[in-house]
């Protein structure tokens, strides 16, 4: 029997050729501890009950699946449904993962969490979970992102988190991740590192995917209830890839559902001007796992660029690399300009400001919906709301 695509990772964290554990030995202890706790939690109905209680009563799940009527009409093809993760408490899908990991943190008896953040959504979601469960929280954020996502910095501080500005390297998400890992090197015994995406060493890519899979499971049920069938196409933006992994994973064994991940094409598809690791990168090791990365020929991490702070990352989750090589998911990219256009279009046609990350998914929808028939159906993961981006969008449009 051929194993199904969903039967990954293996016991040592491999998604086909990708994934694994590539970190200093110091961290292995914490990764093994996390794996053991996750196994115990998974087998414990009380953990699931508590997790689902918070997702329902605090986050507001299930999130809605909403027909974008005017966008559908404007593009003149397939029906477009929006999975409204932007309506979650704190405004993005990130909260699903931080609630789950904060519960694991409590079970491990650790009192402090650390997190990296790019757009600030994961930082806000971590600060929120820390407030809910009474944990200390330090968030590492690149200085460049502190500038362009100031509102989120303020929100984190209001909730009692310490925001640590990272001035090394490119001063963005990659450097924030380095600093979080360095902190963890010295604090593993009492601190849990809540990685915000499906990246990093095993078991993080698996745990984050599992905690985000509510998105895809709900979408499946909602499609069947509303349209009586599964969607023809599912689209999500991909930076590290957590919203896409959570949306795609429950569909990967449904061969009839086309899955499309949209990366940040930035200014141009030239190394240093984009953040499209899957569509323009090569296999390599970054932040603890083997996946597609943007590097030079010496394995040094390349500079990346995206108008969206959340996509401005030179790597991507190893499961996406596996899905790419297996041909199960199609990966494409959209430019900064296309994403900005899509941002404005969704605002004007649907009364929704999407996150700039999410706007990349809409930019691709604009290219494909018109070529599909009216009885077909597209679901877009509306992974986050765009209030945080208003200042940056104003700057870019001026």
């Amino acid at each position, binding site marked *: 029997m051929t194993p199904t695509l969903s039967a990954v990772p293996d016991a040592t964290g491999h998604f086909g050729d990708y994934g694994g554990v590539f970190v*200093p030995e*110091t961290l*292995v202890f914490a990764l093994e501890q996390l794996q053991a706790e996750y196994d115990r939690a998974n087998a414990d109905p009380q953990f699931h009950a508590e997790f689902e209680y918070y997702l329902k009563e605090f986050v507001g799940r299930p999130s809605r699946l909403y027909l974008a009527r005017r966008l559908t009409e404007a593009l003149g093809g397939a029906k477009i449904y929006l999975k409204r993760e932007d309506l979650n408490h704190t405004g993005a899908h990130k909260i699903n993962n931080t609630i789950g990991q904060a519960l694991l943190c409590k079970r491990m008896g650790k009192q402090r969490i650390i997190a990296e953040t790019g757009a600030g959504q994961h930082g806000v979601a971590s600060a929120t979970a820390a407030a809910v469960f009474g944990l200390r929280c330090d968030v590492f954020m690149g200085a460049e992102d502190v500038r362009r996502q100031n509102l989120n910095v303020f929100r984190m501080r209001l909730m009692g988190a310490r925001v640590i500005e990272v001035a*090394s390297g490119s001063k963005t998400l*990659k450097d924030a991740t*380095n600093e979080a890992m360095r902190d963890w090197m010295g604090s593993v015994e009492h601190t849990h590192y809540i990685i915000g995406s499906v990246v990093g060493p095993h078991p993080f890519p698996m745990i984050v995917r599992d905690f985000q899979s509510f998105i895809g499971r709900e979408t499946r049920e909602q499609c069947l209830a509303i349209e009586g069938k599964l969607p023809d196409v599912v689209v999500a933006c991909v930076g590290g890839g957590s919203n896409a992994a959570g949306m795609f994973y429950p569909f990967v064994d449904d061969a009839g559902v086309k899955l499309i991940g949209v990366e940040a094409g930035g200014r141009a598809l030239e190394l240093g001007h984009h953040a499209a690791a899957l569509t323009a990168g090569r296999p390599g090791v970054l932040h603890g796992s083997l996946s597609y990365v943007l*590097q030079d020929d*010496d*394995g040094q991490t390349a500079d990346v660029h995206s108008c969206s702070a959340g996509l401005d990352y030179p790597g991507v989750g190893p499961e996406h690399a596996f899905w790419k090589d297996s041909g199960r998911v199609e990966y494409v990219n959209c430019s900064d300009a296309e994403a900005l256009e899509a941002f404005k279009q969704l605002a004007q046609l649907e009364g929704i400001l999407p996150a700039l990350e999410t706007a990349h998914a809409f930019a691709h929808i604009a290219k494909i919906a018109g070529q599909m028939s009216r009885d077909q159906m597209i679901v877009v993961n509306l992974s986050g709301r765009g209030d945080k981006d208003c200042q940056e969008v104003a700057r870019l449009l001026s």
Partner: protein
Amino acid sequence: MSSRLADSIAAARKSRKLAFLPFLAGGYPDVPTFVETLKAIAPVADAVEIGFPFSDPIADGPTIQAAFADTLSRGIKVKDIFTAVAEARKQVKTPLIAMVSYSIVFRYPLSKFLEGAKACGFDAILIPDLPPPEAQAVCQTINSTGLDTVLLVAPTTSPARRRQIADLSTGFVYYLSVTGITGERETLPPELADGVKMMKSLTQVPVCVGFGISKPPHMQQVAAIADGAIVGSAIIKRMQQHAGESPAAIASAVATYCQEMTSVK
């Protein structure tokens, strides 16, 4: 199996002396100074660890990070480090250890990296972000090229893993003095002695201690428990203090510091 690295540490052990392993950042502060310094410290060193600059070194503190970033910003590539080491090798007989991120080795790729490392005169490879089980196959390849392997053990490493790591380490086991990143510290943690003792009870492979060692009293403390001491950030700090001086002046300042560290009885 006998090798230049194993022999050198065994010789130090035999003369009841703590092996001294200074660390240099490859190509830092510039290639000529790096080569001069390597030549100047080799006579007092039992082995020299040479770090390949990496853009995202997560086990390194601010001192080594800054040295790596500076070197990369000057356009120094892996092949330039190989060339510089080959140049120093004409004179240096001391065993040399390449400390290099798996990100670099994977992309280079491994076979080509090992070929280059061996050709320019390295004796061993230390990949700090490659623990077992991922290390297993890579270590075999390294050993089959005739190079030694050095792996890290952390204070948090379980006894079962310590054994596994010792089995993969043909050069020595690099015991991390602290749960944390590289950088100078005032004192070494009190639990270090028990940790090293436990490590030594599990293996015959030499155990060298690194991270945070910067002062002669640290050397004394480590001499009582381990086979060798690795000193990194403190050396880079010396180089920074003498920034702008001639290669010979910087090399001599570092050599003086190394003599102070090794004159401890």
